[in-house]
């Protein structure tokens, strides 16, 4: 369907200067999102879905307007737990990544442990966290942290482990210590890997915090959605999902922006223009 619209717009662009002036690549995300909502609305209408099964987007937006106050409060709570957990993950992930990348022995010893730990579904850890810290904010922050620090660790360690041997030889011949090589080459070199991993980690952090809020909290979008579900308020559940998607996209965009700002040298093709 999109291919058809594309050819149609191209034909029009040649004829009308107004159509030619629109940057279609920039507009595409918005147009596609609108198309998705339109399609969804039409589907609900065509199949005559009851709102308790699949509410139409108009219904969902109405719910957002109606419950704006609790949605706003719970969205902020989820954003707070997520960014807290994510911030801890960034600090800890960077530290552990540098530690693991430092020596081959530490790398060999810790890597299997990390993989084993990462294979554990984090939802299974929430009850343990509740026993330790009670329900509420703390387990949500910790779950967000636990689920999002692994990709950061792996990326930083990979950046360090792949220093070119020639570079190392040149510096070592000058009398460089391991610390010098890490500071001058290893760490700057692993920064593109690190900032790249933030994009993955932030979306995972949302998964962690919402899972924990759903299972064990009185606040947050996860809790709001599970109580809405128990009252068969399905439009509110979808409103919560929509807010999560919006927060996820916003944070991802922020991470992508930071990545570009911090490691412009790794995106040569765009800078060379």
């Amino acid at each position, binding site marked *: 369907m999109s291919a058809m619209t594309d050819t149609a717009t191209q034909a029009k662009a040649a004829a009308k200067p107004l159509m030619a002036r629109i940057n279609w690549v920039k507009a595409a995300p918005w147009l596609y999102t609108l198309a998705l909502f339109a399609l969804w609305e039409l589907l609900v209408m065509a199949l005559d879905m009851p709102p308790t099964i699949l509410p139409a987007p108009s219904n969902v937006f109405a719910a957002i307007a109606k419950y704006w106050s609790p949605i706003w409060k719970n969205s902020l709570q989820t954003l707070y737990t997520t960014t807290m957990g994510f911030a801890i993950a960034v600090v800890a992930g960077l530290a552990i990544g540098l530690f693991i990348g430092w020596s081959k022995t530490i790398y060999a010893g810790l890597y299997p442990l990390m993989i084993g730990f990462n294979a554990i579904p984090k939802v299974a850890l929430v009850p343990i966290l509740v026993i330790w810290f009670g329900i509420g904010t703390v387990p949500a922050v910790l779950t967000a942290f636990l689920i999002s620090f692994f990709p950061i660790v792996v990326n930083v360690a990979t950046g360090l482990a792949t220093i070119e041997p020639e570079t190392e030889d*040149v510096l*070592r011949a000058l009398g460089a210590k391991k610390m010098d090589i890490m500071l001058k080459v290893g760490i700057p070199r692993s920064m593109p890997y690190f900032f790249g991993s933030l994009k993955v980690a932030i979306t995972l952090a949302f998964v962690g915090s919402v899972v924990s809020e759903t299972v064990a909290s009185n606040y947050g979008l996860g809790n709001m959605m599970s109580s809405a579900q128990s009252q068969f308020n399905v439009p509110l559940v979808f409103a919560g999902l929509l807010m999560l998607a919006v927060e996820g996209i916003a944070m991802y965009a922020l991470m992508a922006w930071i990545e570009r700002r911090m490691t412009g040298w790794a995106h040569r093709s765009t800078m060379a223009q």
Partner: protein
Amino acid sequence: MSHLVSIDNVDMRYGGASGTLAVSGLTMRVDKGEFAAVVGPSGCGKSTLMKLVTGLHIPQTGVVIVGGQQVTKPVSIVGMAFQNPTMLPWRTTLENILLPLEIVERHRHRLRAHKREYVEKAEQLLEIVGLRGFGSKFPWQLSGGMQQRANLCRALIHEPELLMLDEPFGALDAFTREELWCVIRDLHAAQGVTIILVTHDLREAVFLADTIFVMSARPGRILKEHRVPFERPRDLDVMYQSAFNDMVHALHGEIAKARVVA
């Protein structure tokens, strides 16, 4: 004349007692200010020689003496340049060239206070190799030949007494290579630095060097030492003299023989 580098009967084996013997009974001497070239069949331990002289490897038997001291750890009076320029992409060319100064003990504490003086020196070097005004560019904005020029500047910035070059021009096209031969020739003449050049290119060796060492196949040792008779300063035209071609031909024959023996 004093020897800057003297290697005596050195054995170097990788990977324990049953590992590969890379060089065996290696003996060679390079005088101060001399330009030495090392040629040989591939896998003859030329890179091992580089690492022995710079102190990155310590031999199991035999003695390596550089600048009057036995080598037991990396020697910081050496500058190195490899075929791969290994410029750090997040630093400008100038910052790349200044990198050794942040490492070498006798410069790193002076660097911050005397930054101007060092930057001036780096810019002088850039001018010598024909890269004036390119200091603020990032390495990936430079061509391969320009990167290799910057690489030479980096190897020379801390005023090393010995410059070790491991096939620095191997990846360049013929014209750029000849240009850089002239750059190296002029640097050697102007700075009085001792150079050891490891290469596969026999014409390069004969054009640049005072002495050419021919190595045997693995385990490597010096088969023969040639003095290059051509007067300095040498012009590129020297390569079209018959004496030059005869020498290249003779070297070619020796290396071909060394390959067959292995």
